[in-house]
């Protein structure tokens, strides 16, 4: 299974209403860190983020991704919204 598919499977634990994963790895090919894993951009919408500051939301995403953060993902940019924030 490729990394974005594995990410999406694990993020299911946050019951997201939307998950978009962009693989940016090609733009970073050749730099040292790229050997450790891919560069990804994640946009996720979930009611689970309601009432939580960004820091806590990112921690939830990191926890859901688990060992993928060390193995498979080198860099991850996160945009985590609640359904009402995503609407506006």
């Amino acid at each position, binding site marked *: 299974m490729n990394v974005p598919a594995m990410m999406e499977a694990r993020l299911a634990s946050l019951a997201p209403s939307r998950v978009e994963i962009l693989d940016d790895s090609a733009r970073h090919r050749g730099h040292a*860190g790229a050997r450790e894993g891919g560069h990804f951009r994640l946009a996720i919408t979930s009611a689970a983020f309601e009432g939580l500051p*960004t*820091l806590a939301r*990112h*921690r939830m995403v*990191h926890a859901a991704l688990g060992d993928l*953060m060390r193995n498979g993902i080198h*860099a991850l940019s*996160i945009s985590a919204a609640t359904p009402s924030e995503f609407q506006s």
Partner: protein
Amino acid sequence: MDIQEVIKEQVTTHPVVLYMKGTPQFPQCGFSATAAQILKVCGVKPFSVNILEDAAMRQGIKDFANWPTIPQLYIRGQFVGGCDIMKEMYQSGELQKLLEGLAE
């Protein structure tokens, strides 16, 4: 000194500490470059630590705040976040508020 103690001392001695890849002048990663640039725009000169120069620091800083990525920003001893969070807080003006009184 244990690496965790070194980090604790750094973040409590200096009001603004940025752990990054490279230096503010020569960042080695796009996210670190953005983080350094945001602080510069805020008029703040951080105590910056190049984690690429020290393998123990590179792992130690991830354990310290239980945060898996670099850069990491600390203000007055408190972990603030990484590049995405800094960008969001800068856009909302929250970061400038946190940095009040710390600009050069």
